[in-house]
C-alpha cells in the first residue's frame, strides 16, 4: 500500500470513528447507562456485597444456664456473630431459622457443665442455615473453631497449666500470612470483578448496538455500496466504543475504586490499560458476531445477556479453575475474560509485569484476533 492509499484508509477510519462518537454523544439515554455502570454499579457491588461472615444473627437455647454455658455463649460475638438473645424451645428456633431472622442456633444441653467437670465428652448442637452456601459454611467453621478454643481453654484450666507451661507444650501453631490483600478487604476483589463484568458487557453491547442500528435505519446499505470495506465499517465502531469504555474504566478506577475503596495499585497502570484495550477489542468481536445474527436492538440486548453469564461464570473470577470439572476447565481457556481476569488481578493486586503475564497475554491476543475477524467475516458475508 503506497502512502496516499494509506492516508485515505486512515481518513476513512477517522471519519467513521468521529461519526460514531457524535452519534453516541447525542444519545443521552445511552450515555446515562454507560455512566451508571462505571460508577454506581461498581460502587454498589464493592460496598454492598461481602463474602465474609459479618454480624450473623444467632440465638441460643441454653438448657444449662451455667457459668460454662455463659462463657461459651459469650464467645459468639462480633465481628462474626451477633448474639440476639435466648429462646426456650426448638420449635421457636426452627421458626426463626425458617423465616430467615437468624442464621444459626446454638443448643446447649442440660448437663453441659457437669459433664465437663466430670471429664466426660460434652456435646453442643449448632444448627446453621446454609441456603447461602458460603455464609453457612463460614458460620459452621467459625463455630467449630470457637467451641474448640473453648474446650482447649477449659482443659488447660482444669489441668492448672500456666501460660508459660502452655507455651512450652508441644503444640503446632499455624501462622499464615495473607498476601496481596492483607486485610482481606472484599471491596478490592469485588470492585475489580464487577468492573470486569461491566467492561465485558459494554464491549459486546456498544459496538453491536452501533452496528445493528445501521441495519435498522438502512444506512448499512448506503455504506455497503460505498468504497468502504467491511473492516472500515466495523473497526471504527470498535475503536470509538473502545475509547468510551477505556474512558469509563479510567473514571471508575481513579474516582471510585482508588479513592473510595483505597485499592493499592501494585503494578503498572499503563500495562493494565493496554490489556484492557486488548480485551475490549476481543469482546467486541463477539459483539460484532451478535450484530450479524440479530435484526433489532432488543435481540442484541438479549443475546448479550445470554452470553454474559457463561462468560463471567467461566472466567475464574468467582470460582478458581482448579475447582471446576476438567471439561469446563478446558472450556475456560476459550473465554477471553478468563485471561483478562488473571492478568488484571496479577497487575493490579500482585504488581506483576509483562514477564509474568505473557502466557495469558498470548492467549487473549489470539482469541481476540479470532473473534474479531470472525465477526468481520460474518458481516462481509451479509453485506458483501
Amino acid at each position, binding site marked *: 500500500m503506497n502512502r496516499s492509499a494509506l492516508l485515505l484508509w486512515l481518513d476513512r477510519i477517522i471519519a467513521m470513528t468521529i461519526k460514531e462518537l*457524535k452519534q453516541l454523544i447525542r444519545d443521552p439515554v445511552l450515555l446515562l447507562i454507560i455512566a451508571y455502570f462505571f460508577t454506581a454499579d461498581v460502587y454498589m457491588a464493592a460496598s454492598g456485597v461481602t463474602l465474609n461472615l459479618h454480624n450473623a444473627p444467632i440465638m441460643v437455647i441454653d438448657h444449662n444456664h451455667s457459668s460454662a454455658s455463659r462463657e461459651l455463649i459469650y464467645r459468639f460475638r462480633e465481628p462474626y456473630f451477633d448474639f440476639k438473645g435466648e429462646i426456650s424451645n426448638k420449635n421457636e428456633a426452627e421458626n426463626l431459622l425458617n423465616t430467615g431472622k437468624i442464621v444459626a442456633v446454638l443448643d446447649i444441653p442440660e448437663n453441659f457443665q457437669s459433664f465437663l467437670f466430670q471429664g466426660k465428652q460434652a456435646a453442643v448442637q449448632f444448627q446453621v442455615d446454609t441456603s447461602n452456601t458460603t455464609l453457612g459454611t463460614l458460620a459452621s467453621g467459625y463455630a467449630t473453631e470457637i467451641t474448640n478454643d473453648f474446650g482447649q481453654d477449659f482443659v488447660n484450666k482444669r489441668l492448672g497449666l500456666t501460660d508459660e507451661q502452655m507455651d512450652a507444650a508441644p503444640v503446632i501453631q499455624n501462622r499464615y500470612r495473607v498476601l496481596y490483600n492483607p486485610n482481606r478487604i472484599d471491596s478490592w476483589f469485588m470492585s475489580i470483578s464487577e468492573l470486569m463484568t461491566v467492561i465485558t458487557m459494554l464491549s459486546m453491547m456498544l459496538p453491536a448496538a452501533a452496528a445493528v442500528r445501521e441495519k435498522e435505519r438502512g*444506512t*448499512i*446499505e*448506503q455504506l455497503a455500496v460505498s468504497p468502504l470495506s467491511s473492516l472500515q465499517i466495523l473497526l471504527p465502531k470498535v475503536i470509538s466504543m473502545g475509547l468510551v469504555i477505556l474512558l469509563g474504566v479510567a473514571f471508575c478506577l481513579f474516582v471510585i475504586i482508588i479513592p473510595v475503596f483505597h485499592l493499592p495499585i501494585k503494578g503498572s497502570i499503563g500495562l493494565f490499560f493496554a490489556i484492557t484495550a486488548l480485551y475490549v477489542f476481543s469482546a467486541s468481536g463477539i459483539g460484532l458476531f451478535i450484530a450479524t445474527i440479530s435484526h433489532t436492538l432488543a435481540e442484541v440486548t438479549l443475546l448479550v445477556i445470554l452470553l454474559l453469564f457463561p462468560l463471567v461464570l467461566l472466567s475464574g473470577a468467582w470460582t478458581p479453575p482448579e475447582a471446576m470439572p476438567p471439561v469446563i476447565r478446558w472450556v475456560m481457556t476459550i473465554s477471553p475474560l478468563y485471561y483478562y481476569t488473571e492478568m488484571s488481578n496479577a497487575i493490579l493486586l500482585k504488581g506483576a509485569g509483562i514477564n509474568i503475564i505473557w502466557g495469558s497475554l498470548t492467549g487473549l491476543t489470539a482469541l481476540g484476533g479470532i473473534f474479531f475477524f470472525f465477526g468481520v467475516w460474518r458481516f462481509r458475508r451479509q453485506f458483501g
Partner: protein
Amino acid sequence: MGETTLVSGQAVIKISGLCKSYKKKLAVDTVALTVKRGEIYGLIGPDGAGKSSLMKTIAGVMSFEQGSLEVFDVNVDSEAAAEKIKGRLGFMPQGLGLNLYGDLSVEENIDFFAQLRQVSPQQLAERKEKLLTMTWLDKFRDRPMKNLSGGMKQKLGLICTLIHEPELVILDEPTTGVDPISRRNFWAILAELLREHGITALISTAYMDEAARFHRLSLMFNGQILTSGEPDVICQQAQGYLVQLTAEPQLEALKLLKVRYPQIETIGSRIRVFVNNISPDEALKAVSGQLIGVEIKNIQVFDTYLEDAFINLLRKDPLADQSIKEAIIPCFDNPLPDNQGIAIEAKQLTRDFGKFRSVDHINFSVRQGEIFGLLGANGAGKTTAIKMLTGILPPSSGEGTVAGADMRFAGQLIKERIGYMSQAFSLYHDLTVMENIRLYASIYGINRKIIKQRLAWVMQIAGLAGVSGQLAGSLPMGIRQRLALGCALVHQPVVLFLDEPTSGVDPVGRRHFWDILVHLARVEHVAILVTTHYMSEAERCDHLALMHAGRVIADDSPANMIQALQNEAGQMLKITTDSPSEALSCLEQANIKGSGLYGRHIQLLALDTETVENQIRVLLEKHSIKLISLEARPPTLEDVFVYRVLELENRDQA
C-alpha cells in the same frame, strides 16, 4: 340506485376553526371542512401538511385545542364523546400493515379485529367470506401477514377496518408504497364496498394522480386547507393551460422559457410549461414566441392537471413561494464526456433466494446521460436487480458492466464511481446536514484541498442552504430526500442508482428533485437508473423497463410503449354517466371487456372506438341510463403497466 343519489345533504363530519398543535408547532391550523354522507372525500397534500393529524383528530384518537368537531351530529368535545362515535367509524392509520399483527395469519387478523369490535360469529363468518373473496385474499387466509406483499397488506388492513361495517371509514394514505395494479384493485374494492353499504370515506394521499377518484377533495399545505371542491373545479381554479412541446436543443429551449415561465418541467424529451391567465391559442403563441432560435418539433395545449393547479395555488402563498424559488444548479468540477457510451449493462442477470428466483435472466443497457426507469409491482425484482448492479448482492448467474467496469471482478472500482440512494433515504438522523455530507465526502475520499469547495457544491446542488446545522432527523421529507441525493452525489459519480426515491414527497419537492436529475443527465451526462411506483415519474424517464415476476417484459421509451399499446388495444374510452355502477354492470353483461370504474367514470380500452362508442350509446339508452359524456384519449403509462402485467398474469393462469 346510482352513486350520486347516495350522497345526501346530510353531513357526517362537520369541522370549523379546528386547531391542533404539537408543543409549539401548529399541525392543523383553523381548518373548516364538511363531509356528506356517501361521499369519498380526499385530503391531498405533501408530507407534513397536517393530513394525518386532522384524520386522527376526526377519528377521536387525538384531542384538539380549538374549534369544533361534529361527527354523526355528536359534538366531539370530550374523551367520552369520542368514545361514543368510535364504534361507528373505522380508522386505518398510515403505513403498510402497521395496524396489523405480522405473526398472525390473514384470517386470525380479521378475527381479532372482529372480536375487538364485538361482531357476532355469524356476521363475522358471512362478512369475512365476502371480503376475502372480493379482495382475492381467500387463497392466502392462512398466510402470516408479514409474508404478504404491500398491496395485499393494504387490502387486509381495509378488511380489518371494515369488518364491523362502520358508517364512516378514515384511511390515511392507504396507497403509498403500493404498485399501480394493487392500487387500482384497492380503489375498485373500496368503491364497490362504499357503494354497497352507502358508507362515507375520508381518504388521504400524497399523490395528485389519485385525485380523480374522489367526489370532493381538499388541498392541504402547512396545516391549512388551500382550497376544497370537486377535482375538476379545483383544476379550473388554476386559470391557465399547459403547453407541451418538444424542441431541439432541449436545454436551450428550457433556458429561454424559464425566464418567463417559472412553472416548467421536463418530461423525457418533452417540456411542459404552465401558462397563466390567457386563452389556449394565446398561450400557444406566447410560448412559441419565446423560443427564438430553437426548432420546435411538436407543440400542444392541454387543460391543467391537479398537480399544476396545486403548485399554482402554492405560488400565491408568499410563504410557500419561497420554497419553490428556482435554484441555480451548479455543474460538476470535471464534466463527463458526452459520448453516449454504455453506462450500465445487464446480461442474463439472475438471482435466486433458495428456491425462489427473484430476478430471472434480465437484460438491459443504459447509456451515459440517459434516465432509465425500472418499473414493476412490489416484489417484481427491482430492488434485487439494483442490489446486484451496485455490488451489495452477488448474482447467481449472468454478468454486467457498471461505469465501464465488470461487476464480477471490479466491485471496488464500481463502488467508487457510482452514487446510490435507497428507498428509506438512508441518512444518519442524529447527525446534522453538514455532518452527513462531510461523512460521505470522507468515505468517498474527496481530496482535502477541494473538500470545502465540494461541500459547498453539494449544499447548492441539493438546495440545502439554511439548513446545514439542522439534524437530518428533524427535516421534512422533501429536504431529507435532497440531502440523501446530495450525499449520493458528493463524489460526482458517473452512474446514479435511485431506489424509489420519491415516496411520500410533495409535488413541489418532487419537481425540484427531478429538475436536479434532468440537469445531471442532460448537462453532466450522468446515467441514472431509477425505480418508482408512480407513473407521473416514469413518464419523465427517457427509457423504461417493465419488470414482472423477475423478468423484463417490456423495454422501450415511454412514448413507444404507449404507442405500442394503442396499436394493440386501442384508445381509452372515458364514459361519464349519471349512475356509473349500473352502467358498469350493463357493460359487463353485454360482454364489453376490460371496463373498470375509475372515480365516477368508467374506462375501457377499445381498438375500434367508433363501433364500441355506438354500442355503448345504444346499450345505455336501452337501460335508460343518462350518458353525460363519452371521450376517447390515448392510453397512459399506467394503462400500459396494468395492461401488460394483467396480460401476463392471465396467461400464467390459463
